[in-house]
């Protein structure tokens, strides 16, 4: 069908213009469609506005193909001419073309000025500039050319942008405050759910807890180990470069174990879990919101927070401290690899030196930190998931925001811990 159409009507067009006094005859022939719309429209417009005219007659007798976009462009040409007090007529339309013209609604033409603005060479604007605005335009501000010129001038715009900027800062601040309030409310609801579970232990879905322990914990072991090991290697290597200048190689194991256990272990693990599990929780609950599954839970009498969030939070709080200890160990192993291979330290010296540095208090605080981070990460993931209202875009938006907020909260909590542990010790 398509080839036949092409054979009968090649994708070419021809426009011839005949001027008679103040009248212009435009003869269209060939193929007029989306593909050549920009070219033929500006060609015809250029001819119409070249000199003063009284009427334009567009003859369709040679048109073999016309699509709805091309028809719309021709109607716009006609309307544009009418605004310039040029009478415009479309003649010799065949039935098919008439049918196409009949689908063009008046409201499709409302945005005429912006269409004209986009014309390739901006000839309309130049024309108006040259003519210093035609008398008819001055009469009414409604006139589209007047609006076109108005839009091109930019006075008073900077003041508007300044206001917009302040307004946006205000709106964003309000949004952040609202988000925080929602999070605090959610933590409250989560606590209520926990209290209920403490009183009714049977209502905890143990199977779900085990499932998320596997998801967040077991499945995360390889990446946590890998990152821990590499962190250990990097710290050992970088500190070795500095320490060797003062001959203090023996302190490399101390630095590695101290840094891993005190800060890097818990933070790195928490960030990894935020990337892996917090996002997964948000996306999972978000999709359930979209699919009305959370509504279904409600109507079946299940409290969604208790049913969906609590197992995730419990599982995360159990596995993240374990993952942290695991990351700490791998970090120390990473340091050990550098220590033994590049620092001329024996395995025994390295281990003894590490053990000297590590105190039980540090390990305990590391685990406490990890547990608190885990609680924050999983709660944020679930809370953001419950905020999803409609559609895939919302799921993406809240998943991203869950991860960003989780990482931010990890850093905030870590700062608070740093100060707190300093005074406790």
């Amino acid at each position: 069908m398509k080839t036949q159409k092409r054979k009968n009507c090649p994708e070419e067009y021809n426009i011839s213009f005949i001027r008679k006094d103040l009248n212009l005859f435009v003869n269209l022939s060939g193929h007029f469609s989306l593909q050549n719309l920009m070219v033929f429209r500006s060609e015809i417009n250029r001819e119409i506005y070249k000199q003063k005219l009284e009427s334009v007659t567009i003859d369709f007798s040679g048109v073999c193909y016309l699509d709805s976009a091309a028809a719309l462009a021709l109607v716009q040409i006609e309307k544009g001419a009418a605004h310039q007090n040029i009478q415009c007529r479309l003649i010799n339309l065949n039935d098919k073309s008439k049918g196409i013209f009949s689908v063009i609604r008046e409201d499709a033409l409302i945005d005429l000025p912006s269409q004209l603005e986009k014309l390739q060479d901006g000839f309309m604007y130049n024309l108006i500039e040259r003519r210093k605005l035609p008398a008819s335009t001055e009469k009414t501000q409604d006139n589209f050319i007047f609006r076109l010129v108005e839009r091109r001038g930019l006075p008073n715009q900077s003041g508007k942008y300044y206001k917009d900027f302040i307004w946006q800062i205000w709106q964003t601040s309000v949004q952040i405050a609202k988000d925080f309030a929602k999070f605090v409310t959610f933590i409250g609801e989560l606590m209520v759910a926990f209290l209920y579970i403490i009183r009714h232990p049977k209502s905890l879905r143990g199977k779900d807890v085990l499932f998320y322990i596997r998801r967040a914990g077991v499945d995360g072991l390889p990446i946590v180990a890998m990152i821990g090991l590499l962190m250990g290697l990097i710290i050992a290597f970088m500190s070795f470069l500095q320490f060797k200048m003062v001959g203090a190689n023996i302190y490399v194991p101390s630095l590695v174990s101290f840094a891993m256990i005190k800060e890097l272990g818990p933070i790195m693990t928490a960030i990894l879990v935020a990337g892996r599990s917090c996002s997964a929780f948000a996306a999972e609950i978000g999709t359930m919101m979209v699919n009305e599954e959370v509504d279904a839970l409600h109507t079946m009498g299940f409290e969604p927070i208790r049913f969906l969030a609590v197992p995730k939070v419990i599982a995360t709080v159990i596995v993240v401290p374990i993952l942290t200890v695991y990351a700490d160990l791998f970090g120390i192993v990473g340091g050990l690899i550098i220590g033994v291979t590049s620092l001329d330290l024996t395995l025994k010296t390295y281990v003894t030196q590490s053990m000297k540095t590590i105190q039980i208090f540090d390990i305990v605080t590391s685990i406490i930190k990890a547990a608190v981070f885990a609680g924050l990460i999983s709660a944020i993931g679930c809370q953001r998931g419950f905020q999803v209202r409609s559609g895939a875009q919302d799921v993406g938006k809240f998943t991203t925001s869950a991860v960003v907020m989780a990482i931010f909260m990890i850093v905030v909590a870590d700062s608070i811990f740093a100060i707190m542990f300093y005074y406790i010790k």
Partner: protein
Amino acid sequence: MDTQEKTPIIVVKDLAARFGNNIVFEGLNFQVYEGEVLVIVGASGCGKSTLLKIMIGLQKPYSGQVLYQGMDIVSAEEKELNQYRQNIGVLFQSSALFGSMTIRENIELPLQEYTDIDQATIDSIIRMKLGMVNLAGYENHQPSELSGGMKKRAGIARAIAMDPRVLFFDELSAGLDPVTAAELDDLIIKTEEALGTTMVIVTHELESIYKIAHRVLMLDKEAKGIIAEGKPLELKEQATDPRVRSFFLRQKPDTSDEQRFYVS
């Protein structure tokens, strides 16, 4: 069905719903009688789904009451509301089966939570409910493995798991082919006959309405309330309101707006 002889199971009194300042509906008064199939119809945006959400306790109305056997579910405490929820079953537009669970787990969830029935009996109940909706043997399938019509049927099996007194259906046959939609209608009739469950159904399908509805309520966006109430065939034949007529006769109402085409 002669509604005069029946006792109302749900009474909606002066119900109003708003979105911000927009009134969805107001002054809504109607009753759902025990054992009847009530179909709520109306054009998109007239508040059918909002009404359903209020009736199942998912959304709070702006004002008014929804009384289930005398208990107002709008002002009810969570505990009472949970009691009410155990007496109703809901089939959502998207079926809302839990995607991470098998069909069996979906159906056994409320049974395990609210009853102390042993697992063997629960298994038999699941098989019976799946048999009722012609899905025998699909216990261990995931919802993602089922077609749209099968998902709806599995959703019905879950909704009737606890033998509820009232069943709510949101957009019963939306997005289904005519044959599957007709099968679903038959299933509704069969379930209603077998269990005598009261049903409140939101749907657009005229054929379904004629087939399953005992009574129809028609909401209207402009009127912000009920514009017609009655038996479907009576409404089709006797309604004088042009909005009701055009809905039941599947005609577009005459408006001059339609003639705004550009004609060269």
